[in-house]
């Protein structure tokens, strides 16, 4: 029986002894039990540490949707091999995934048991402002023949991260897996179309090809032509698949339309076929025949593509071979604006030129930056995935953020994105990145863009720290294991800064103070404030660390008796594990002022004493002379007194 601390949402226990690999849609999954009811019909899908769960979807999906493995809860629990884990709890799928029992489906079953139920789910998700982005055969489930298909969970990883390229439109399949973004419902419709086609064929098309080739083939021929043109399919399915795999997402049928397959089939959008060149333009050994494939080739091989752009080959090819003078002129204008920039700006200028050229050549293409392709909302997961494992990509991403490339990219295609919002976001990202000190930089951006990303500090490696309230217990454990550790490192500071709402700004800003003493003090105050606000439990290990660290501050007090008293009191408070009273005791500005003033008074008194002692030591001759004078006067006085007394006696007798 799991301890209450190991229950997710206070009720779900993960049964690590019951792995359910077929239920996670490619992610690790285990059985889960509702401890309050004893019901074991749940699956816990494990979240990978650097691929955070979808916070927005988990927040929005509070009500279950029929035909979808909706999230019931999410949280941390012990994972396999004794490591910390984070799981998303869903109902157990009703049966095996479709990929496990793939065979050609009849048309009626495709429409009634697959397309309609899936379209209904997508319609409800669309109404909630969500996309699924994990529609693939190993994430679609069916209780048995004749039962409707159920969409698997899509919440335990960034959107579309585990989608094979064949299920994604070319503009998404070409992206980094973590950078595909939430996309639109049209992208779900595209994946649904691929699944429909696969079920109709009884196999996944192009499954034998690698991802890059799949994307290139789709771009060269168009998705439908590349996947289904040579297949024999029922006419209704052919029409539906053609519409669902339209290159332009705006041309794909909506989920509502798909609920009526006959209407969806009858909807035809006349898309102008792309211009095809007479002769190809070869970029890095890849022949390109139209503008989209050229854009893809430049995005994949930016240096070779840039060369073709700068030496005019691409423009000439567009004008003469492709016969698109308008596009050639726009590329020429772009080059004219960018050619003048030199020096350190040149590298960035080249990257911007490439990005803008790709955007001009293929308005559907994602943002490409020095070989990295992604959608702007995929930036956070891309950063998380590249963190600590791909420094080259991190450097490129840093450049992307610093130059606000997302804003420039969006400015080049304002009709296909929310340009004002992306511009604001790009500026905000840059501000976070350029924030100096412990609480800024890439770590800050990383946590700000990934609300459920756990803290990646080595100090919290043994735990899954995804919320602010979990920071202090993790630090307590780390410091207890190794008292020489410093509990605040850049990841911890950035995590706190990103997760805190307000109230800790002063301490977080002071972490980057140029004076080491101020920055140190800010660390102590930060820990104390966090304990006071978020974790009102004793932290004896952190308190002992704090007592050790603040010892020099105690030594700054002048009065020795007060120092001893403070050290004793500090030791007592450290045992109680309360940080704020310890800090208040050590800092105590009023007491320190009084101590300093008393020290000044004492110093002045000591100076006077020293001076007087010196005078006494040097005053021997003076005292001798004074004694002589006084003695003589005394003798004279005695003589005079005796004389007066004798005269008085004589006068009276």
């Amino acid at each position, binding site marked *: 029986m799991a301890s209450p601390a190991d229950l997710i949402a206070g009720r779900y226990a993960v049964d690590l002894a019951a792995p359910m690999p077929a239920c996670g849609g490619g992610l690790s999954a285990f059985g889960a039990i509702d401890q309050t009811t004893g019901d074991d019909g749940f699956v816990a899908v494990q979240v990978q540490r650097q691929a955070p769960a979808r916070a927005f979807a988990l927040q929005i999906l509070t009500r279950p949707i029929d035909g979808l493995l909706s999230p019931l809860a999410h949280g941390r629990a012990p994972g396999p091999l004794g490591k910390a884990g984070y799981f998303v709890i869903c109902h157990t799928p009703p049966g095996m995934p479709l990929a496990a029992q793939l065979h050609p489906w009849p048309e009626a079953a495709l429409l009634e048991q697959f397309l309609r139920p899936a379209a209904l789910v997508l319609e409800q998700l669309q109404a909630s402002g969500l996309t699924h982005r994990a529609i693939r055969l190993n994430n679609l489930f069916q209780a048995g023949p004749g039962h409707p298909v159920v969409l698997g969970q899509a919440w335990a990883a960034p959107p579309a991260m585990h989608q094979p390229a064949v299920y994604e439109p070319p503009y998404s399949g070409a992206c980094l897996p973590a950078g595909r973004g939430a996309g639109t419902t049209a992208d779900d419709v595209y994946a649904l179309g691929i699944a429909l086609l696969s079920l109709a064929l009884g196999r996944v098309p192009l499954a034998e090809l690698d991802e890059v080739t799949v994307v290139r083939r789709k771009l060269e021929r168009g998705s439908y032509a590349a996947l289904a043109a040579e297949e024999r399919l029922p006419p209704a399915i052919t029409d539906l698949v053609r519409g669902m795999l339209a290159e332009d997402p705006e041309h794909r049928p909506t989920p509502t339309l798909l609920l009526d397959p006959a209407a969806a089939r009858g909807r035809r959008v006349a898309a102008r076929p792309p211009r095809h060149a007479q002769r190809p333009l070869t970029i890095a050994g890849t022949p390109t025949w139209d503008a989209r494939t050229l854009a893809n080739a430049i995005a994949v091989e930016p240096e070779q593509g840039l060369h073709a752009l700068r030496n005019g080959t691409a423009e000439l090819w567009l004008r003469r071979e492709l016969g698109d003078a308008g596009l050639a002129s726009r590329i020429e204008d772009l080059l004219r604006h960018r050619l003048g920039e030199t020096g350190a700006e040149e590298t960035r200028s080249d990257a911007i030129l490439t990005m803008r050229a790709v955007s001009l050549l293929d308005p559907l293409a994602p943002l490409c930056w020095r070989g990295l392709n992604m959608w702007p909302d995929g930036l956070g997961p891309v950063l998380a995935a590249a963190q600590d494992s791909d420094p080259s990509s991190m450097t490129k991403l840093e450049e992307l953020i610093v130059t606000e490339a997302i804003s420039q990219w969006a400015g080049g295609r304002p009709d296909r994105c929310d340009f004002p919002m992306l511009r604001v976001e790009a500026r905000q990202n840059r501000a976070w990145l350029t924030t100096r000190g412990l609480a800024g930089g890439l770590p800050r951006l990383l946590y700000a863009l990934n609300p459920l990303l756990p803290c990646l500090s080595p100090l919290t490696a043994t735990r899954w720290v995804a919320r602010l309230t979990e920071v202090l217990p993790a630090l307590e454990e780390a410091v207890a294991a190794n008292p020489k550790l410093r509990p605040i490192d850049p990841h911890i500071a950035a995590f706190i800064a990103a997760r805190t709402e307000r109230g800790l700004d002063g301490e977080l800003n002071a972490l980057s103070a140029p004076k080491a003493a101020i920055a140190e003090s800010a660390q102590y105050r930060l820990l104390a404030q966090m304990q006071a606000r978020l974790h009102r439990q004793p932290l004896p290990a952190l308190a002992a660390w704090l007592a050790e660290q603040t010892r020099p501050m105690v030594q700054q007090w002048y009065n020795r008796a007060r120092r001893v008293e403070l050290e004793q009191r500090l030791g007592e408070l450290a045992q109680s594990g309360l940080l704020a009273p310890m800090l208040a005791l050590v800092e105590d500005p009023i007491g320190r002022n009084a101590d300093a003033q008393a020290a000044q008074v*004492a110093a002045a008194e000591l100076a006077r004493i020293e001076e007087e002692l010196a005078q006494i030591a040097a005053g021997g001759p003076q005292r001798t002379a004074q004694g002589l004078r006084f003695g003589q006067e005394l003798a004279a006085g005695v003589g005079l007194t005796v004389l007066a007394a004798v005269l008085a006696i004589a006068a009276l007798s």
Partner: protein
Amino acid sequence: MAHPPKRQHSLVWLQGLGCGAVVTLAPGFAALLGALLAPGLLALMLDREPGHPMARCVLLMGMATCVPPIEALWSSGQTLAAAMNLLGDFQVLGTAWIAAAAGWLLAEAAPLGSRLVLEALARSRAARLRARRQELVEAWGFDSTGEE
């Protein structure tokens, strides 16, 4: 413009004139006082310190012992014979000279005693100050050389 220092005139001749007048006009008193105050006069000559502190004390003590013999000379006719008669009394002369000796002793001992008292007071004060200094150093951790 600086004034020239005043010239110090010797009054010895005037003192000699006075003494001569007394010897001439009252030889009895002169003989009596001369004998009784002889130690004081001797001290006056020997004491070279400014203000003649030792001679002053000896003379004062001697003068105190001169009062009864002078009264006795006054009442016995103030003659030289009466003065000689008084001087012949060993008690009179002895008392005067012992008093003079006591004056001398007092003049020598009083400075020594007062110096000892002052020194004791200074030492006592220094001891209290050192104790206080030690308290301050221990309480506040000041650096103190301890030199005096």
